[in-house]
């Protein structure tokens, strides 16, 4: 269903369901949809993954290229995250340069991965100040069923943990080694539906919710990144509660990630 076709009637219905602790698809308010992770399907990528979160499908490919480091971090590799809402993912797709929403998505995913230090950037240095590995995380959204933030973070984490450094192809060493991964960041996204806060919103819920909150944790339960979005607001208590819920609820995603 396209976002503008969800009527006010639907909005009222979803809000009153949420107030009773129910959802249109039968889930509880703090429950994730079914998650499925596959890895290694793209041979031209150094790492790849396909993540299904309910009806949302995201394909992630990792490319590693050699480049020069930034002047302020001569001994560290670099990382770039881009998301592309493939035209086939959404009827409302506009051609042209990435829209603000897509840039926000890429930057939130980027921060979750970067600030958790999931990748050991110092291990990506080939020659101090001269040559480092540049990690490109490209996320392709094939089906937008809502909550792209968590699905993309999960896809990026899965593809990175599946990635190999292409030493042989670039003549750096005799064998390809695993990309050094230190921890597993997981994000949980909440939406405010009327006066209720729900986890893992579907695209229908997204079209009627007023505010969004994404919280990323590492596996030790430390908070690593957060982002509030949309033009509604959360109360202070809701924010604190959501962070606690995220810490409890991300287990199901963490287990799925470890299972690959």
């Amino acid at each position: 269903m396209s976002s503008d076709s969800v009527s006010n009637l639907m909005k009222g219905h979803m809000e009153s369901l949420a107030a009773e602790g129910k959802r249109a698809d039968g889930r509880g308010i703090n429950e994730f949809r079914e998650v499925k992770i596959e890895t290694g399907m793209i041979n031209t990528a150094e790492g790849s993954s396909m993540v299904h979160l309910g009806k949302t499908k995201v394909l992630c490919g990792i490319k590693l290229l050699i480049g020069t480091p930034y002047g302020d971090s001569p001994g560290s590799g670099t990382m770039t995250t881009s998301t592309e809402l493939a035209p086939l993912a959404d009827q409302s797709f506009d051609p042209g340069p990435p829209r603000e929403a897509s840039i926000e998505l890429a930057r939130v995913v980027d921060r979750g991965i970067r600030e958790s230090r999931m990748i050991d950037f110092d291990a990506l240095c080939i020659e101090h100040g001269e040559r480092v590995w540049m990690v490109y995380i490209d996320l392709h959204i094939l089906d937008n069923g809502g909550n792209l933030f968590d699905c993309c973070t999960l896809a990026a984490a899965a593809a990175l943990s599946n990635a190999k450094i292409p030493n042989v192809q670039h003549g750096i060493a005799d064998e390809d080694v695993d990309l050094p991964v230190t921890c597993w960041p997981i994000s949980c996204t909440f939406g405010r539906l009327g006066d209720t806060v729900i986890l893992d919103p579907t695209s229908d819920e997204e079209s009627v919710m007023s505010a969004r909150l994404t919280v990323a944790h590492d596996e030790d339960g430390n908070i690593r990144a957060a982002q509030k979005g949309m033009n509604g607001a959360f109360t202070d208590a809701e924010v604190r509660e959501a962070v606690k819920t995220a810490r409890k609820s991300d287990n199901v995603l963490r287990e799925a990630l470890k299972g690959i």
Partner: protein
Amino acid sequence: MAGQTDMELIKDGVRLDGRKPDELREVKITAGVLDNADGSCYLEWGNNKIYAGVFGPMECHPRHKQKADRAIVQARYTMAPFSVNDRKRPGLDRRSSEISYIVSQAFEKVVMVEEFPKASIRVDMQVVEAHAGTRCAAMTAASVALADAGIPMRDMIPACASGKVNDVVVLDLNKEEDNYGQADLPLAIIPSTGEVVLLQLDGHLTPDQFEEAMDLATSGCMDLYKIMRDALDKSYGGKK
């Protein structure tokens, strides 16, 4: 096309990947794989991997592109950054734009555009892994996605390339043959009428080799047509 090369691409009638000159790579097609799109298809052709999605008929944007008496087909061919060995910069480049344009025109011949004045039918082709022959593979996937969307069409259009390697005319060039071969001829036809809706050619073919290449690509298209129909039959054919 690098033209004449010392590289031995075919030996005793067997190609580098073990195929005979007139043999297609393995093609697997699944219809209806995406939820948001009105029709969709996932296709594997050798190592090529492609998703196609269709939206419409719907109001045409931008408005100035509307046709008063018919719909237009807006095809879009894009390659994922990770679909090739060197990362491809995201977005439309000149090659993708050209392919999108000629594919749109090819589909306007078979889609019953006169049924939907002022409308647009969007056909999106997303190459997620590329190993030569992606425009043909993408078109083939798009045909199945159009059928999956229930868009009225006169026929589907299978697309397949033939070419020349080491002076032998072959069907469906692989990566090495595409890079080092002598000619590449992508062809798309309407099977029920035999009409050609897409044809490109680069390289070098003698008049006789051109005839042979046309014959070979046409027979490749017909083989493909069967695989396309089987895929739809599997999704929609009901119990046998």
